[in-house]
């Protein structure tokens, strides 16, 4: 059972995106596409032919697979409904962050590979964001890791109680900002934009089409759900099962669904009510988040909780 929990991420990640889109549409007074639309989009893309620029190298063709498998590997490390993580002993939270970084590295290379202006722009912006986001993520997770005495996410999830210390709350806020930046959402990036000059994540993908694009999109959905999952594992593990008994799993699964819906709602709410930030202002938001993360770590060290 625990060996297959990562399948939840693979299967349901497009659904989460569909739900976020639906909530956003409702907030804007539109009907919006159905919540299954991301699946239809993926199916459609898988059926399509590809157009690949003749100047691209192997990197362009390898990247979709690397990104996709890296994301699946990452999801194997993360406990979804039971803390008996599939491959929990194989990697911890640091490994996880670097598996993400691997995917991002190749994505940025692929953005540059075709030699188009927007790919390069997207890559350069993505790396700028990444440099700022990585330390935030590290520090906020470290706060939780130190209090749990382990960098293993499953272990953190087991130990984290219902009561929150100040350091956890600070770390949580920092982590939320990091998630927004990592998933390419407003106010950092606009996932719905058609304005190629403003794109970050989409800019890198502009050259992709057909099945490759489907893999990249799917990987992006998975990464989004994974980050949400890590957030609930570390900060709200309430309800997560520590064994693989049916009753525990059932409770854990329903708690998980509720948590995901809550996060989806929160994401849609932030995205609907805020305008995208000016690109050069973004470091100040991320800098602010970094200070929060640092404070949370200091608070923990000084106060011991």
């Amino acid at each position: 059972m625990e060996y297959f929990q990562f399948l939840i991420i693979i299967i349901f990640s497009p659904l989460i995106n569909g739900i976020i889109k639906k909530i956003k549409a409702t907030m804007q007074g539109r009907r919006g596409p159905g919540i299954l639309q991301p699946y239809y989009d993926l199916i459609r893309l898988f059926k399509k032919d590809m157009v690949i620029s003749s100047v691209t190298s192997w990197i362009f063709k390898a990247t979709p697979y690397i990104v996709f498998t890296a994301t699946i590997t990452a999801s194997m490390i993360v406990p979804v409904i039971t803390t008996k993580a599939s491959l929990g002993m194989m990697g911890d939270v640091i490994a996880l962050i670097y598996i993400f970084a691997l995917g991002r590295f190749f994505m940025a290379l692929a953005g540059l590979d075709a030699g188009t202006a927007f790919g390069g722009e997207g890559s350069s912006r993505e790396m700028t964001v990444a440099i700022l986001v990585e330390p935030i993520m590290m520090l906020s997770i470290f706060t939780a890791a130190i209090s749990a005495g382990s960098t293993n996410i499953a272990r953190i999830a087991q130990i984290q109680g219902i009561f929150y210390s100040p350091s956890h709350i600070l770390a949580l806020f920092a982590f939320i900002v990091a998630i927004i930046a990592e998933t390419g959402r407003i106010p950092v990036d606009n996932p719905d934009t058609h304005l190629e000059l403003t794109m970050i994540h989409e800019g890198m993908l502009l050259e992709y089409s057909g099945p490759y694009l489907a893999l990249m999109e799917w990987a992006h959905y998975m990464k989004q759900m994974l980050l949400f999952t890590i957030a609930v594992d570390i900060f709200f593990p309430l309800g997560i099962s520590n064994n693989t008994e049916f009753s525990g799993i059932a409770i854990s699964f329903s708690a998980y669904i509720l948590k995901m819906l809550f996060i989806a709602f929160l994401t849609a709410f932030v995205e609907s009510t805020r305008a995208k930030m000016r690109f050069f202002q973004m470091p100040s938001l991320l800098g602010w988040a970094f200070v929060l993360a640092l404070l949370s770590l200091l608070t923990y060290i000084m106060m011991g909780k």
Partner: protein
Amino acid sequence: MEEIYRKKGVKIREHLNEQYIEVSRKDFKDSCAYLYEKKHSVLRLMFATDERRIDNSFRIYTVFSIPGIDRFFIIVLSLKDDDFTFPSITTEIPAAHWYEREIRDMFGLIPKGHPDLRRLILHDSFPANSYPLRKDWSITETDLREWGEGVKQKEPYNFMEVEGEGIYEIPVGPVHAGIIEPGHFRFSAVGETIVFLEPRLFYTHKGTEKHFEGMSFFDGIKLAERVSGTSSFSHSVAYCMAVERIAGIEITEKAKGVRTLLLEIERLYNHIGDIGNMCAGTGLAVGYAKGAVLKENLMQLNDRLTGSRYLRGINVIGGVTKDVFLQADAILSTVNDVTHGYKDSMRLLLGSASHIERLENTGGLSKDIAQKLGVTGVAARASGINDDIRKAHPHLLYDRLEFESHTMTKGDVFARMMVRAEEAECSISMINALLENRYEGELSVEVMEIPEYSSAIGYAETPRGSVFYWVMSDNEGRPFRVKLRSPSYCNWPAVPFAGQGNIVPDFPLCNKSFNLSYSGCDM
């Protein structure tokens, strides 16, 4: 003005508020410069005609208007004896630079002394030495096909290059990621900062001006209505006005009332839609959706009033086809509803710090540059130029209506939004004021005869700025030449200046704040 009149060989002809001043080649530049520098006049439009059929000459017309005087001063230069050059006025009057290049492309008349003689309207694949607006122009099948395919470079276009350490070029378009009109932009940037931007437009050349020639005056309305979707009605008002002025007819009070009312409704729906559209530039989805809903309400009102969402089919030469005042209650109730919604959404936008922060200090256009380039409409008023055709050359009922033309000084995106917001409120009060009165008269008067080879200007203030139609009749009761100048044509050259110094991701917002049409400036 006496200085010009006293010159040798000057012929003056008056027609309504148009004064045609025919000068010699040697005085042309001085006369234009005099009007521009001494009288602070605005270059409204500049164009050429091929009148070889009449008296074997090409003519260049430059139309100026002096602030505070309801009169157009039109300096006319005749080019005879196969000398296809004329003195360029671009160095004195920068606003003339596109007009002169257009004349070069379309008539093959060379503006001598123009600093930039690259092609403007015709693209690389269009055959050399082929000038479409000449009356004797023809094109071979092969040339036409190759032009359409755009593969062969017949007259290459060299983009300007910026050299320096760390400068790189970003070519954008003409095919964009979104479904928008085609336009090519070449950014030279250092990091994310725009150092220089060169647009290459005119991908949608449809030969509109050429089409007018030989159509009937009546059919011309349909074409004018379709030049620019967002300002269909303003275009047809300006076109009809030009033809009515040639024919020497005065439309009735009723027709004036209907035209004024619908012009303001058109302004209102555009301004509200444009303010919403700016939210798409900043990613504020709710603001965008609200703007779209309000705009849709007004467009449905248009549909109920006239049978056309874009107010087409209402104008005819000599008046209008429908008395929309009969539906005054429907207009009032929709406009009231929209006003409430609009005020709510403005409160939301102005209360959103993240949205306003993006608008302020983005895409600033200085008054000096705006003035030099002859920018018009919202963009001009946001930069502090108080120019509004409704005030400068009062027509229809505008001399009787109370309204202000709002100006801001900073010329940034925020200023352009606020000018729109204030004008929208102004339009709402004008609509209310118009509906309170009764207007007498028939819907339209009959046009008996259109005198041959005579011309007149028609104009209107579209939501984007002033539109001008200069129409000349031929001896068979058809248009001989129609020059149309849309506001986008004046404002496009200003967009690169507004973009300079901004960061690349802010350019789309900047561009949206001008909201110019690509097709609407490509005649």
